[in-house]
Protein backbone atom coordinates (compact mmCIF):
# COMPACT_ATOMS: atom_id res chain seq x y z
CA UNK A 1 0.00 0.00 0.00
CA UNK A 2 1.66 3.22 -1.11
CA UNK A 3 1.74 6.19 1.30
CA UNK A 4 -0.78 8.19 -0.77
CA UNK A 5 -3.23 5.30 -0.52
CA UNK A 6 -3.09 5.15 3.27
CA UNK A 7 -6.51 5.93 4.80
CA UNK A 8 -6.74 9.16 6.74
CA UNK A 9 -8.70 10.17 9.80
CA UNK A 10 -11.90 9.30 7.93
CA UNK A 11 -11.12 5.66 8.63
CA UNK A 12 -11.22 6.18 12.38
CA UNK A 13 -14.45 8.19 12.15
CA UNK A 14 -15.94 5.45 10.00
CA UNK A 15 -14.70 2.82 12.40
CA UNK A 16 -16.20 4.63 15.39
CA UNK A 17 -19.61 4.61 13.70
CA UNK A 18 -19.39 1.35 11.77
CA UNK A 19 -17.89 -0.96 14.40
CA UNK A 20 -20.92 -0.79 16.74
CA UNK A 21 -23.17 -1.48 13.74
CA UNK A 22 -21.07 -4.54 12.85
CA UNK A 23 -21.17 -5.63 16.49
CA UNK A 24 -24.97 -5.26 16.58
CA UNK A 25 -25.36 -7.38 13.45
CA UNK A 26 -23.03 -10.03 14.86
CA UNK A 27 -24.96 -10.05 18.14
CA UNK A 28 -28.24 -10.43 16.22
CA UNK A 29 -26.84 -13.39 14.35
CA UNK A 30 -25.41 -15.13 17.41
CA UNK A 31 -28.41 -14.33 19.60
CA UNK A 32 -31.04 -15.62 17.16
CA UNK A 33 -29.17 -18.65 15.79
CA UNK A 34 -27.58 -21.79 17.12
CA UNK A 35 -23.79 -21.98 17.03
CA UNK A 36 -23.98 -24.40 14.12
CA UNK A 37 -26.16 -22.04 12.09
CA UNK A 38 -23.95 -19.06 12.91
CA UNK A 39 -20.92 -20.96 11.64
CA UNK A 40 -22.90 -21.98 8.57
CA UNK A 41 -23.60 -18.31 7.80
CA UNK A 42 -19.90 -17.47 8.21
CA UNK A 43 -18.94 -20.43 6.03
CA UNK A 44 -21.32 -19.39 3.27
CA UNK A 45 -20.18 -15.76 3.42
CA UNK A 46 -16.48 -16.63 3.21
CA UNK A 47 -17.13 -19.24 0.52
CA UNK A 48 -18.82 -16.55 -1.58
CA UNK A 49 -15.72 -14.35 -1.44
CA UNK A 50 -13.41 -17.24 -2.27
CA UNK A 51 -15.61 -18.37 -5.14
CA UNK A 52 -15.64 -14.83 -6.52
CA UNK A 53 -11.94 -14.05 -6.07
CA UNK A 54 -10.45 -17.42 -6.92
CA UNK A 55 -12.84 -18.72 -9.57
CA UNK A 56 -15.16 -16.13 -11.10
CA UNK A 57 -12.70 -13.29 -11.58
CA UNK A 58 -9.87 -15.45 -13.00
CA UNK A 59 -12.36 -17.08 -15.38
CA UNK A 60 -13.70 -13.67 -16.38
CA UNK A 61 -10.17 -12.30 -16.91
CA UNK A 62 -9.33 -15.29 -19.07
CA UNK A 63 -12.49 -14.92 -21.17
CA UNK A 64 -11.93 -11.20 -21.64
CA UNK A 65 -8.30 -11.85 -22.59
CA UNK A 66 -9.28 -14.60 -25.02
CA UNK A 67 -11.81 -12.33 -26.71
CA UNK A 68 -9.09 -9.72 -27.15
CA UNK A 69 -6.87 -12.35 -28.78
CA UNK A 70 -9.44 -13.88 -31.09
CA UNK A 71 -11.94 -11.16 -32.05
CA UNK A 72 -11.00 -8.18 -34.27
CA UNK A 73 -10.28 -5.18 -32.07
CA UNK A 74 -13.13 -3.03 -33.40
CA UNK A 75 -15.65 -5.66 -32.28
CA UNK A 76 -13.88 -7.01 -29.20
CA UNK A 77 -15.51 -4.66 -26.70
CA UNK A 78 -18.97 -5.41 -28.03
CA UNK A 79 -18.34 -9.13 -27.74
CA UNK A 80 -16.99 -8.67 -24.21
CA UNK A 81 -20.11 -6.71 -23.25
CA UNK A 82 -22.33 -9.35 -24.79
CA UNK A 83 -20.56 -12.23 -23.05
CA UNK A 84 -20.61 -10.50 -19.67
CA UNK A 85 -24.27 -9.53 -20.16
CA UNK A 86 -25.09 -13.14 -21.03
CA UNK A 87 -23.29 -14.35 -17.91
CA UNK A 88 -25.26 -11.87 -15.79
CA UNK A 89 -28.60 -12.97 -17.24
CA UNK A 90 -27.77 -16.65 -16.72
CA UNK A 91 -26.64 -15.97 -13.15
CA UNK A 92 -29.87 -14.16 -12.28
CA UNK A 93 -32.02 -16.87 -13.88
CA UNK A 94 -29.89 -19.75 -12.54
CA UNK A 95 -32.52 -20.94 -10.05
CA UNK A 96 -35.29 -20.95 -12.64
CA UNK A 97 -33.10 -22.69 -15.22
CA UNK A 98 -32.34 -25.46 -12.76
CA UNK A 99 -35.83 -25.71 -11.33
CA UNK A 100 -34.64 -24.66 -7.87
CA UNK A 101 -37.63 -23.58 -5.80
CA UNK A 102 -40.16 -25.18 -8.16
CA UNK A 103 -43.14 -26.95 -6.59
CA UNK A 104 -45.61 -29.13 -8.43
CA UNK A 105 -48.43 -27.82 -6.22
CA UNK A 106 -47.56 -24.20 -7.00
CA UNK A 107 -47.06 -23.46 -10.71
CA UNK A 108 -47.07 -19.71 -10.03
CA UNK A 109 -43.36 -20.06 -9.07
CA UNK A 110 -41.32 -19.70 -12.27
CA UNK A 111 -44.41 -19.59 -14.49
CA UNK A 112 -42.41 -19.01 -17.68
CA UNK A 113 -40.38 -21.58 -19.59
CA UNK A 114 -37.01 -20.71 -18.06
CA UNK A 115 -34.96 -21.70 -21.11
CA UNK A 116 -37.09 -19.62 -23.47
CA UNK A 117 -37.15 -16.67 -21.07
CA UNK A 118 -33.37 -16.77 -20.59
CA UNK A 119 -32.66 -17.09 -24.30
CA UNK A 120 -35.00 -14.16 -24.99
CA UNK A 121 -33.23 -12.05 -22.38
CA UNK A 122 -29.84 -13.04 -23.84
CA UNK A 123 -31.11 -12.08 -27.30
CA UNK A 124 -32.12 -8.67 -25.91
CA UNK A 125 -28.60 -8.25 -24.52
CA UNK A 126 -26.98 -9.04 -27.87
CA UNK A 127 -29.41 -6.83 -29.82
CA UNK A 128 -28.65 -3.89 -27.52
CA UNK A 129 -24.91 -4.57 -27.70
CA UNK A 130 -25.06 -4.76 -31.50
CA UNK A 131 -26.99 -1.49 -31.73
CA UNK A 132 -24.52 0.33 -29.48
CA UNK A 133 -21.57 -1.17 -31.33
CA UNK A 134 -23.01 -0.13 -34.71
CA UNK A 135 -23.68 3.42 -33.51
CA UNK A 136 -20.22 3.85 -32.01
CA UNK A 137 -18.57 2.31 -35.09
CA UNK A 138 -20.48 4.73 -37.32
CA UNK A 139 -19.45 7.64 -35.09
CA UNK A 140 -15.85 6.49 -35.28
CA UNK A 141 -15.98 6.45 -39.10
CA UNK A 142 -17.57 9.89 -39.28
CA UNK A 143 -14.96 11.18 -36.86
CA UNK A 144 -12.12 9.73 -38.94
CA UNK A 145 -13.45 11.42 -42.12
CA UNK A 146 -13.83 14.82 -40.49
CA UNK A 147 -12.25 17.73 -42.50
CA UNK A 148 -10.46 18.76 -39.32
CA UNK A 149 -8.40 15.60 -39.56
CA UNK A 150 -5.39 17.41 -40.93
CA UNK A 151 -5.40 20.01 -38.17
CA UNK A 152 -5.93 18.55 -34.74
CA UNK A 153 -5.26 21.95 -33.15
CA UNK A 154 -3.13 22.85 -30.20
CA UNK A 155 -3.22 20.45 -27.30
CA UNK A 156 -5.29 17.90 -29.17
CA UNK A 157 -4.43 14.64 -30.82
CA UNK A 158 -1.58 13.88 -28.51
CA UNK A 159 -0.17 10.43 -28.29
CA UNK A 160 -1.85 9.95 -24.93
CA UNK A 161 -5.33 10.56 -26.35
CA UNK A 162 -4.99 8.18 -29.24
CA UNK A 163 -3.39 5.40 -27.33
CA UNK A 164 -5.46 2.24 -27.13
CA UNK A 165 -5.96 1.19 -23.52
CA UNK A 166 -4.92 -2.34 -22.74
CA UNK A 167 -7.82 -4.76 -22.79
CA UNK A 168 -7.82 -5.80 -19.16
Amino acid sequence: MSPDEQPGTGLWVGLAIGAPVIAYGTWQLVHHSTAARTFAVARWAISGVLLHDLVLVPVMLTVVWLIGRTIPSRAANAVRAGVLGTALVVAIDWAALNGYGDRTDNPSIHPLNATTATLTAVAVVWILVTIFWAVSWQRSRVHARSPLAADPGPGRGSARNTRTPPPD
Partner: protein
Amino acid sequence: MTTPTPVRFTSRLHDERTAAFLGIALGASFSVCFATGLLSHAAQNPPAWLEWPARPAGLYRITQGLHVATGIASIPLLLAKLWTVYPKLLRRPLFGSVAGFVERVSIVPLVAGGIFLLFTGLANINQWYPWPFNFRTAHYSVAWITIGALIVHVGAKWTTTRTALSHAPHNKLPAAGNPIPSGLNRRGFLGLVAGAAGLVTVLTVGETVWPLRKLALLAPRRPDTGPQGFPVNRSAVAAGVTVTARDPNYRLVVDGAVGRRLELSLADLHSMPQHEATLPIACVEGWSASRRWRGVRVRDLLDHAGAHPNASVQVVSLQEGSSYRESELNPGQAHDRDTLLALFVNGEVLHLDHGYPLRLIGPNRPGVEQTKWVTRLVVS
Protein backbone atom coordinates in the same frame (compact mmCIF):
# COMPACT_ATOMS: atom_id res chain seq x y z
CA MET B 1 2.41 -17.93 -17.09
CA THR B 2 3.30 -15.05 -14.81
CA THR B 3 1.45 -14.17 -11.65
CA PRO B 4 -0.69 -11.07 -12.18
CA THR B 5 0.34 -8.06 -10.15
CA PRO B 6 -1.20 -4.59 -9.87
CA VAL B 7 1.42 -3.27 -12.27
CA ARG B 8 -0.09 -5.39 -15.05
CA PHE B 9 -3.56 -3.87 -14.54
CA THR B 10 -2.83 -0.59 -16.29
CA SER B 11 -6.31 0.11 -17.66
CA ARG B 12 -8.28 3.16 -16.51
CA LEU B 13 -11.05 0.74 -15.60
CA HIS B 14 -9.08 -0.06 -12.47
CA ASP B 15 -8.35 3.52 -11.40
CA GLU B 16 -9.66 5.38 -8.37
CA ARG B 17 -12.08 7.51 -10.38
CA THR B 18 -13.88 4.48 -11.83
CA ALA B 19 -13.92 2.84 -8.41
CA ALA B 20 -15.31 6.06 -6.90
CA PHE B 21 -18.24 6.27 -9.32
CA LEU B 22 -19.11 2.61 -8.83
CA GLY B 23 -18.67 2.91 -5.08
CA ILE B 24 -21.12 5.81 -4.91
CA ALA B 25 -23.70 3.92 -6.99
CA LEU B 26 -23.24 0.77 -4.93
CA GLY B 27 -23.35 2.69 -1.65
CA ALA B 28 -26.63 4.31 -2.72
CA SER B 29 -28.22 1.01 -3.80
CA PHE B 30 -27.08 -0.81 -0.65
CA SER B 31 -28.39 2.04 1.51
CA VAL B 32 -31.81 1.89 -0.18
CA CYS B 33 -31.80 -1.89 0.18
CA PHE B 34 -30.88 -1.64 3.85
CA ALA B 35 -33.47 1.03 4.68
CA THR B 36 -36.29 -0.79 2.90
CA GLY B 37 -35.16 -4.07 4.45
CA LEU B 38 -35.40 -2.51 7.91
CA LEU B 39 -38.93 -1.37 7.11
CA SER B 40 -39.86 -4.88 6.03
CA HIS B 41 -38.40 -6.29 9.22
CA ALA B 42 -40.28 -3.73 11.29
CA ALA B 43 -43.54 -4.57 9.50
CA GLN B 44 -43.11 -8.25 10.37
CA ASN B 45 -41.49 -7.86 13.79
CA PRO B 46 -42.54 -4.44 15.06
CA PRO B 47 -40.59 -3.25 18.09
CA ALA B 48 -42.62 -2.43 21.19
CA TRP B 49 -42.43 1.31 20.53
CA LEU B 50 -43.75 1.09 16.98
CA GLU B 51 -47.35 0.59 15.88
CA TRP B 52 -46.90 -0.25 12.19
CA PRO B 53 -49.34 2.06 10.36
CA ALA B 54 -52.19 0.82 8.19
CA ARG B 55 -51.77 3.79 5.86
CA PRO B 56 -50.72 4.53 3.19
CA ALA B 57 -52.20 1.29 1.97
CA GLY B 58 -49.57 0.63 -0.73
CA LEU B 59 -46.48 1.68 1.23
CA TYR B 60 -45.16 -1.82 1.83
CA ARG B 61 -45.71 -2.68 -1.82
CA ILE B 62 -43.44 0.22 -2.81
CA THR B 63 -40.74 -0.29 -0.18
CA GLN B 64 -40.46 -4.04 -0.72
CA GLY B 65 -40.60 -3.71 -4.50
CA LEU B 66 -37.79 -1.17 -4.18
CA HIS B 67 -35.86 -3.50 -1.88
CA VAL B 68 -35.84 -6.35 -4.36
CA ALA B 69 -35.35 -4.12 -7.42
CA THR B 70 -32.32 -2.34 -5.93
CA GLY B 71 -30.96 -5.67 -4.74
CA ILE B 72 -31.09 -7.08 -8.27
CA ALA B 73 -29.65 -3.88 -9.75
CA SER B 74 -26.82 -4.12 -7.22
CA ILE B 75 -25.60 -7.42 -8.70
CA PRO B 76 -23.90 -5.89 -11.78
CA LEU B 77 -22.79 -2.90 -9.70
CA LEU B 78 -21.09 -5.12 -7.12
CA LEU B 79 -19.45 -7.34 -9.74
CA ALA B 80 -18.15 -4.27 -11.60
CA LYS B 81 -16.87 -2.69 -8.42
CA LEU B 82 -15.05 -5.86 -7.38
CA TRP B 83 -13.61 -6.12 -10.89
CA THR B 84 -12.37 -2.55 -10.73
CA VAL B 85 -10.62 -2.95 -7.39
CA TYR B 86 -9.45 -6.53 -8.00
CA PRO B 87 -5.79 -5.50 -8.52
CA LYS B 88 -5.73 -4.21 -4.93
CA LEU B 89 -6.18 -7.80 -3.82
CA LEU B 90 -2.72 -8.50 -5.25
CA ARG B 91 -1.08 -5.37 -3.86
CA ARG B 92 2.06 -5.70 -1.75
CA PRO B 93 2.76 -4.96 1.02
CA LEU B 94 -0.65 -6.07 2.19
CA PHE B 95 -1.10 -3.51 4.97
CA GLY B 96 1.78 -1.07 5.37
CA SER B 97 0.45 0.46 8.57
CA VAL B 98 -2.09 -0.03 11.35
CA ALA B 99 -4.61 2.07 9.43
CA GLY B 100 -3.96 0.04 6.31
CA PHE B 101 -4.49 -3.15 8.28
CA VAL B 102 -7.79 -1.93 9.73
CA GLU B 103 -8.99 -0.80 6.32
CA ARG B 104 -8.17 -4.09 4.62
CA VAL B 105 -9.70 -6.17 7.41
CA SER B 106 -12.90 -4.11 7.22
CA ILE B 107 -13.20 -4.99 3.54
CA VAL B 108 -13.67 -8.68 4.37
CA PRO B 109 -17.15 -8.31 5.98
CA LEU B 110 -18.08 -5.75 3.32
CA VAL B 111 -17.32 -7.99 0.36
CA ALA B 112 -18.40 -11.22 2.05
CA GLY B 113 -21.59 -9.59 3.32
CA GLY B 114 -22.39 -7.98 -0.02
CA ILE B 115 -22.03 -11.24 -1.95
CA PHE B 116 -23.92 -13.15 0.76
CA LEU B 117 -26.84 -10.70 0.79
CA LEU B 118 -27.24 -10.61 -2.97
CA PHE B 119 -26.98 -14.39 -3.34
CA THR B 120 -29.34 -15.25 -0.50
CA GLY B 121 -31.77 -12.52 -1.55
CA LEU B 122 -31.81 -13.77 -5.13
CA ALA B 123 -32.31 -17.36 -3.96
CA ASN B 124 -35.09 -16.28 -1.60
CA ILE B 125 -37.16 -14.59 -4.29
CA ASN B 126 -36.94 -17.92 -6.13
CA GLN B 127 -37.98 -19.75 -2.93
CA TRP B 128 -34.73 -21.72 -3.11
CA TYR B 129 -33.07 -22.41 0.24
CA PRO B 130 -29.92 -24.52 -0.20
CA TRP B 131 -28.45 -23.51 3.18
CA PRO B 132 -28.93 -24.87 6.71
CA PHE B 133 -29.75 -21.52 8.41
CA ASN B 134 -32.84 -19.36 8.73
CA PHE B 135 -32.94 -16.95 5.79
CA ARG B 136 -34.62 -14.08 7.59
CA THR B 137 -32.30 -14.12 10.61
CA ALA B 138 -29.16 -14.47 8.49
CA HIS B 139 -30.16 -11.87 5.87
CA TYR B 140 -31.12 -9.34 8.53
CA SER B 141 -28.02 -9.85 10.69
CA VAL B 142 -25.58 -9.86 7.79
CA ALA B 143 -27.22 -6.69 6.45
CA TRP B 144 -26.24 -4.87 9.65
CA ILE B 145 -22.71 -6.26 9.48
CA THR B 146 -22.38 -5.23 5.83
CA ILE B 147 -23.71 -1.73 6.40
CA GLY B 148 -21.36 -1.30 9.35
CA ALA B 149 -18.43 -2.38 7.16
CA LEU B 150 -19.68 -0.03 4.43
CA ILE B 151 -19.59 2.89 6.88
CA VAL B 152 -15.99 2.01 7.80
CA HIS B 153 -15.11 1.75 4.11
CA VAL B 154 -16.72 5.10 3.27
CA GLY B 155 -14.68 6.70 6.05
CA ALA B 156 -11.48 5.04 4.82
CA LYS B 157 -12.05 6.06 1.22
CA TRP B 158 -13.52 9.51 1.83
CA THR B 159 -10.39 11.46 0.96
CA THR B 160 -9.37 9.19 -1.92
CA THR B 161 -12.83 9.41 -3.46
CA ARG B 162 -13.04 13.18 -3.14
CA THR B 163 -9.62 13.54 -4.70
CA ALA B 164 -10.45 11.17 -7.54
CA LEU B 165 -13.69 12.97 -8.35
CA SER B 166 -12.32 16.49 -8.01
CA HIS B 167 -9.78 16.09 -10.83
CA ALA B 168 -10.78 16.34 -14.47
CA PRO B 169 -10.84 12.97 -16.21
CA HIS B 170 -8.05 12.18 -18.65
CA ASN B 171 -10.12 10.40 -21.27
CA LYS B 172 -10.76 13.28 -23.68
CA LEU B 173 -11.86 12.46 -27.20
CA PRO B 174 -9.04 12.01 -29.66
CA ALA B 175 -8.40 14.62 -32.26
CA ALA B 176 -10.56 14.71 -35.35
CA GLY B 177 -9.23 12.35 -37.94
CA ASN B 178 -7.70 10.04 -35.39
CA PRO B 179 -9.47 6.82 -34.52
CA ILE B 180 -11.41 6.49 -31.31
CA PRO B 181 -9.53 4.04 -29.10
CA SER B 182 -10.88 0.53 -29.45
CA GLY B 183 -10.30 -0.40 -25.79
CA LEU B 184 -13.19 0.24 -23.42
CA ASN B 185 -12.78 3.64 -21.80
CA ARG B 186 -14.11 4.66 -18.40
CA ARG B 187 -17.26 6.25 -19.73
CA GLY B 188 -18.00 3.21 -21.86
CA PHE B 189 -17.40 0.87 -18.93
CA LEU B 190 -19.62 2.85 -16.57
CA GLY B 191 -22.26 3.08 -19.29
CA LEU B 192 -22.06 -0.68 -19.73
CA VAL B 193 -22.52 -1.26 -16.00
CA ALA B 194 -25.40 1.21 -15.81
CA GLY B 195 -26.98 -0.43 -18.84
CA ALA B 196 -26.65 -3.88 -17.25
CA ALA B 197 -28.20 -2.65 -14.00
CA GLY B 198 -31.02 -0.99 -15.94
CA LEU B 199 -31.63 -4.04 -18.10
CA VAL B 200 -31.87 -6.55 -15.23
CA THR B 201 -34.21 -4.12 -13.47
CA VAL B 202 -36.48 -3.83 -16.50
CA LEU B 203 -36.47 -7.62 -16.93
CA THR B 204 -37.53 -8.26 -13.31
CA VAL B 205 -39.45 -5.28 -11.94
CA GLY B 206 -42.58 -6.28 -13.86
CA GLU B 207 -43.33 -8.70 -11.03
CA THR B 208 -44.57 -5.67 -9.10
CA VAL B 209 -44.96 -2.90 -11.72
CA TRP B 210 -48.05 -4.04 -13.62
CA PRO B 211 -47.40 -2.23 -16.95
CA LEU B 212 -43.99 -3.95 -17.23
CA ARG B 213 -45.24 -7.45 -16.40
CA LYS B 214 -44.79 -8.74 -19.95
CA LEU B 215 -41.10 -7.79 -19.77
CA ALA B 216 -40.49 -9.70 -16.53
CA LEU B 217 -38.50 -12.46 -18.24
CA LEU B 218 -36.12 -12.96 -15.34
CA ALA B 219 -38.63 -12.48 -12.51
CA PRO B 220 -39.61 -15.61 -10.58
CA ARG B 221 -43.23 -14.42 -10.53
CA ARG B 222 -45.73 -12.72 -12.82
CA PRO B 223 -48.42 -10.66 -11.10
CA ASP B 224 -51.02 -11.98 -13.57
CA THR B 225 -50.19 -15.69 -13.25
CA GLY B 226 -51.59 -18.13 -10.71
CA PRO B 227 -54.95 -19.27 -9.41
CA GLN B 228 -57.54 -16.53 -10.09
CA GLY B 229 -54.87 -14.61 -11.99
CA PHE B 230 -52.26 -13.87 -9.33
CA PRO B 231 -49.43 -15.78 -7.64
CA VAL B 232 -49.40 -17.91 -4.52
CA ASN B 233 -46.52 -18.23 -2.09
CA ARG B 234 -47.74 -21.18 -0.07
CA SER B 235 -50.31 -23.50 -1.59
CA ALA B 236 -53.05 -25.32 0.32
CA VAL B 237 -51.21 -28.60 -0.32
CA ALA B 238 -47.97 -27.22 1.13
CA ALA B 239 -49.86 -25.86 4.13
CA GLY B 240 -51.67 -29.18 4.65
CA VAL B 241 -55.15 -27.63 4.76
CA THR B 242 -56.86 -29.20 1.75
CA VAL B 243 -59.21 -31.19 4.01
CA THR B 244 -59.73 -28.82 6.94
CA ALA B 245 -60.36 -25.80 4.72
CA ARG B 246 -63.17 -27.65 2.91
CA ASP B 247 -64.74 -29.06 6.08
CA PRO B 248 -68.48 -28.28 6.05
CA ASN B 249 -68.28 -27.84 9.83
CA TYR B 250 -65.79 -24.99 9.41
CA ARG B 251 -66.23 -22.25 12.01
CA LEU B 252 -64.58 -18.90 12.67
CA VAL B 253 -64.08 -18.40 16.38
CA VAL B 254 -63.66 -14.93 17.92
CA ASP B 255 -62.55 -15.13 21.53
CA GLY B 256 -60.04 -13.79 24.03
CA ALA B 257 -60.78 -10.38 25.59
CA VAL B 258 -64.33 -10.17 24.29
CA GLY B 259 -67.70 -9.60 25.87
CA ARG B 260 -69.26 -12.38 23.79
CA ARG B 261 -67.47 -15.35 22.23
CA LEU B 262 -68.46 -15.83 18.58
CA GLU B 263 -68.53 -19.01 16.58
CA LEU B 264 -69.56 -18.30 13.02
CA SER B 265 -70.24 -20.62 10.12
CA LEU B 266 -69.56 -19.64 6.51
CA ALA B 267 -73.29 -18.93 6.13
CA ASP B 268 -73.14 -16.61 9.15
CA LEU B 269 -70.20 -14.76 7.62
CA HIS B 270 -71.98 -14.42 4.26
CA SER B 271 -75.03 -12.99 6.00
CA MET B 272 -73.03 -10.22 7.67
CA PRO B 273 -72.55 -6.80 6.00
CA GLN B 274 -70.02 -7.21 3.18
CA HIS B 275 -67.44 -4.58 2.29
CA GLU B 276 -65.06 -4.18 -0.62
CA ALA B 277 -61.50 -2.92 -0.80
CA THR B 278 -58.90 -2.84 -3.56
CA LEU B 279 -55.64 -3.83 -1.91
CA PRO B 280 -52.36 -5.37 -3.00
CA ILE B 281 -50.89 -8.64 -1.90
CA ALA B 282 -47.33 -7.39 -1.52
CA CYS B 283 -44.97 -10.27 -0.93
CA VAL B 284 -41.62 -10.05 0.84
CA GLU B 285 -40.14 -11.74 -2.25
CA GLY B 286 -40.87 -8.57 -4.19
CA TRP B 287 -43.91 -9.43 -6.31
CA SER B 288 -47.24 -7.75 -5.76
CA ALA B 289 -50.70 -7.81 -7.27
CA SER B 290 -53.63 -5.54 -6.57
CA ARG B 291 -57.07 -7.15 -6.37
CA ARG B 292 -60.64 -6.31 -5.38
CA TRP B 293 -61.50 -8.11 -2.14
CA ARG B 294 -64.92 -8.55 -0.52
CA GLY B 295 -65.73 -9.81 2.94
CA VAL B 296 -66.44 -8.91 6.54
CA ARG B 297 -64.70 -6.03 8.26
CA VAL B 298 -62.59 -7.19 11.21
CA ARG B 299 -63.78 -4.18 13.19
CA ASP B 300 -67.42 -5.23 12.65
CA LEU B 301 -66.60 -8.64 14.11
CA LEU B 302 -64.82 -7.03 17.05
CA ASP B 303 -67.79 -4.74 17.68
CA HIS B 304 -70.11 -7.73 17.42
CA ALA B 305 -68.03 -9.59 19.99
CA GLY B 306 -67.92 -6.59 22.31
CA ALA B 307 -64.14 -6.09 22.11
CA HIS B 308 -62.41 -2.96 23.39
CA PRO B 309 -61.97 -0.21 20.74
CA ASN B 310 -58.19 -0.40 21.23
CA ALA B 311 -58.02 -4.16 21.01
CA SER B 312 -55.25 -6.01 19.20
CA VAL B 313 -56.01 -9.22 17.36
CA GLN B 314 -54.09 -12.42 16.78
CA VAL B 315 -55.21 -14.02 13.53
CA VAL B 316 -54.84 -17.81 13.50
CA SER B 317 -54.75 -20.06 10.45
CA LEU B 318 -55.82 -23.66 9.93
CA GLN B 319 -52.28 -24.55 8.86
CA GLU B 320 -50.05 -26.23 11.38
CA GLY B 321 -46.34 -26.07 11.99
CA SER B 322 -45.58 -22.86 10.10
CA SER B 323 -44.01 -19.72 11.50
CA TYR B 324 -46.66 -17.84 9.53
CA ARG B 325 -49.56 -19.70 11.12
CA GLU B 326 -50.43 -16.57 13.10
CA SER B 327 -50.23 -12.85 12.50
CA GLU B 328 -50.96 -9.77 14.56
CA LEU B 329 -53.27 -6.86 13.90
CA ASN B 330 -52.41 -3.83 15.99
CA PRO B 331 -55.34 -1.58 17.04
CA GLY B 332 -54.91 0.72 14.05
CA GLN B 333 -54.85 -2.17 11.61
CA ALA B 334 -57.69 -4.08 13.28
CA HIS B 335 -60.01 -1.06 13.13
CA ASP B 336 -59.08 0.13 9.65
CA ARG B 337 -62.09 0.30 7.34
CA ASP B 338 -60.30 -1.84 4.71
CA THR B 339 -59.05 -4.63 6.97
CA LEU B 340 -61.25 -7.52 5.93
CA LEU B 341 -61.70 -11.20 6.40
CA ALA B 342 -62.19 -11.80 2.69
CA LEU B 343 -64.55 -14.37 1.23
CA PHE B 344 -64.24 -13.21 -2.38
CA VAL B 345 -61.59 -11.86 -4.72
CA ASN B 346 -62.51 -10.10 -7.94
CA GLY B 347 -66.10 -11.31 -7.53
CA GLU B 348 -65.18 -15.00 -7.16
CA VAL B 349 -65.13 -17.20 -4.08
CA LEU B 350 -61.52 -17.47 -2.89
CA HIS B 351 -59.48 -20.25 -4.47
CA LEU B 352 -58.22 -22.81 -1.94
CA ASP B 353 -54.64 -21.65 -2.58
CA HIS B 354 -55.64 -18.05 -1.87
CA GLY B 355 -57.04 -18.93 1.54
CA TYR B 356 -60.55 -20.37 1.10
CA PRO B 357 -62.76 -20.19 3.05
CA LEU B 358 -61.50 -17.00 4.70
CA ARG B 359 -58.35 -14.92 4.53
CA LEU B 360 -57.12 -11.75 6.10
CA ILE B 361 -56.44 -8.80 3.82
CA GLY B 362 -55.40 -5.42 5.16
CA PRO B 363 -53.67 -2.28 3.95
CA ASN B 364 -49.88 -1.85 4.18
CA ARG B 365 -49.08 -5.37 5.32
CA PRO B 366 -46.49 -7.86 4.05
CA GLY B 367 -48.04 -10.75 2.14
CA VAL B 368 -46.93 -13.30 4.75
CA GLU B 369 -48.96 -11.38 7.31
CA GLN B 370 -52.14 -11.61 5.19
CA THR B 371 -53.00 -14.87 6.90
CA LYS B 372 -54.85 -17.46 4.83
CA TRP B 373 -57.36 -20.14 5.92
CA VAL B 374 -58.33 -18.08 8.98
CA THR B 375 -60.09 -20.03 11.71
CA ARG B 376 -59.72 -17.92 14.82
CA LEU B 377 -59.36 -14.34 16.04
CA VAL B 378 -57.88 -13.99 19.52
CA VAL B 379 -58.59 -10.53 20.92
CA SER B 380 -56.28 -8.94 23.49
